């Protein structure tokens, strides 16, 4: 079919090209949102994510300063996600500590299946703004855990609540969701 009276046809190509560029840019933006989201979570504590895997960063000295003027209550809880035949409970429901003090607690985990199972714990801290001041030094969530059939194990957790914690936060809840470890290899960037 011949296009009859379509004027100024020469302009269309350039404009279409620019619009396609916008489409490409917003597709790239959508993909960039994935790492961007992680960064924003890290900075703001959005979603209660804690990013202290591997302990304190290399340039960070162990905390010597302990804020004895106040006590913070840390509560522990855990959920086993569907598909993982485990039981999970904290040995203590909560501890009270001064910010800056190192504290060790443990979770009791038991495999109820008759075969070895690999699990991965994902921590979450509430309220979200406390997450960036909650430093885990040693945690069973840093690695995947393998339990033999029927095996029960005490899994240790060592942490510090940094003195920079907002004064208004008096209670912090640390929750673990234990997932069945995905079958493929974990992500290479070392995040748990």
């Amino acid at each position, binding site marked *: *079919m*011949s*296009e*009859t*009276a*379509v*004027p*100024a046809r020469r*302009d*269309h190509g350039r*404009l*279409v090209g620019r*619009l*396609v560029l*916008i*489409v*490409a840019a*917003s*597709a790239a*933006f*959508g*993909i960039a*949102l*994935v790492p961007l*989201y992680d960064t924003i*979570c890290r900075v*703001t*504590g*959005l*979603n*209660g*994510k804690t990013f202290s895997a591997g302990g304190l960063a290399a340039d960070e000295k162990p905390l010597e300063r302990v804020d004895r003027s106040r006590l913070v209550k840390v509560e522990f809880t855990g959920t086993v*996600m569907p598909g993982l035949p485990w039981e999970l409970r904290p040995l203590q429901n909560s501890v009270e500590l001064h910010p800056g003090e190192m504290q060790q607690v443990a979770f009791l985990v038991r495999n109820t299946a008759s075969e070895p199972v690999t699990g*991965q714990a*994902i921590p979450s801290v*509430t*309220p*979200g*703004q406390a997450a960036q001041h909650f430093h885990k030094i040693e945690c069973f969530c840093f690695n995947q855990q393998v339990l033999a059939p029927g095996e029960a194990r005490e899994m240790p957790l060592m942490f510090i609540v940094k003195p920079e914690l907002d004064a208004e936060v008096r209670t912090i809840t640390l929750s673990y*969701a234990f*997932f*069945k*470890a*995905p*079958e*493929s290899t*974990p*992500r290479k*960037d070392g*995040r*748990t």
Partner: protein
Amino acid sequence: MNTATTTVNGHAGHHDGGHHPTGILRWLTTTNHKDIGTMYLSFALIMFFVGGIMILAVRAELFSPGLQLMQPEFFNQLIGVHALVMIFAALMPAATGFANWQIPLMIGAPDMALPRLNNWGFWLLPPAAILLTMPFVLALFGIGDGAIATGWTFYAPLSVQGGIGVDFAIFAVHILGISSILGSINIIVTIFNMRAPGMTMMKLPLFCWGWLITAFLLIATIPVLAGAVTMLLTDRHFGTHFFNAAGGGDPILFQHLFWFFGHPEVYILLLPVWGLMPHVLATFSRKPTYGYRGQVYGFIAIGILSVIVWAHHFFTAGMPVPALLYFMYSTMAISLPLAVLFFCWIATMWRGSMSFETPMLFAVGFIVLFGIAGLTGLVLADVAADAQYHHSYFVVAHFHYALFAGGIMGVMTGVYYWLPKWTGRMYSETLGKWHFWLTVLSFNLTFMPQFFLGLAGMPRRIPDYALQFAEFNAISTVGSFILGLSQLLFAWNIIQCARGRGAPAESRAWEGAEGLEWELSSPPPHHSWEVQPQVK
């Protein structure tokens, strides 16, 4: 600005007859903006009934507590596919159909700028609609477990675990997205390059302005949705963990990606309607549109604000307080430009010599009911109140006031207003008025009780409910069936016009109508403006 002025082609006069393909080939190969507009609108009307039947089945199940007609799995499939069909296969194609028909007529162009792309943009839709609904049919033959059952939002991890219906929906969204992007590019190029001499951007009809903003929102946000559902697909089949917490991903990330598209989508659906409203109001008030500039700037402001407020859809998912406050205030800020639009609509009618033909009835009904959507939206934008109302029937009622009363009744306004132009025939005013009153009354009968259900604590997306919600649900179901059946009047009225029944329409079908489209015959010639008009 378009300086290429009037192009007259001596050959053009012959184009009405002779060498066009006829029958199905005409529709498969057409590059004519009016044919394509007609196909978009017909497709939208059919899918409107498909989506409507799905939700009537849902309402029938909800007529009384307990499970009577279907299992929860099937219920979940119906609500999700209802939403996807209504949004992507009914409302969006209807708006694109309007754009195809009206934009060239209104700006004095012979056709859309990219006619072949236009054809392809439409013919992508039927395969997408088939992909979306096919899992229902496959399940009848024992293949798979039915359509997507996650609701239209695809939330992970549910969508990662779902059956093949999710894959079908993902591919349907990909295809619909490509179609929308092609349509948008075409509309932007047409508006920028094809305007009649003398039509500056600030003389552009408001309908075209509304669509221009919609088109930019589409090309800026659809790729993000496409990316999100692609990540979902790789999570499901290729071992990635974008949304799998155990593998280092985050299901909340999906909500951010989805609603970064999903919130602008609301305005994508509504801006074309806001654009056509002033034309109808001015016509039947016999006054010029009030506040043209204010409305243009309102459209632009809403377009910009719409992409920075998305997280108000999941206030309860867990966010730091400053983020909650930001999303609350920015959401509420949208009500300011929207209030400008409302005041312009009312001021256009103010002291006009108004008459209430069917399009005007729908326009006034739209203003009142869409106002309720806006005010209840302010309630939901409040972080403290939202904690109570989130995921309740209050939300369902709110967005149906926005998308049925705001979106679909807006589309009906446009259909009644322009149908005489498109078909050359006047529809039956009596049937039109019956359609309006039945629609508006049964709509309120359906959705007003849902506000109270939500306030009383009934969650959405459940097939069964506690006894205390029984009365309101029964009322709502009765209303929904009247609402559904009333739409047959709408279809009948359109079909009669399309068949050439009814009084012939004049070029200027409405006494007070202004604008270039009314200077062409009804129906317009095969090539709309072979000689471009001069706009003073």
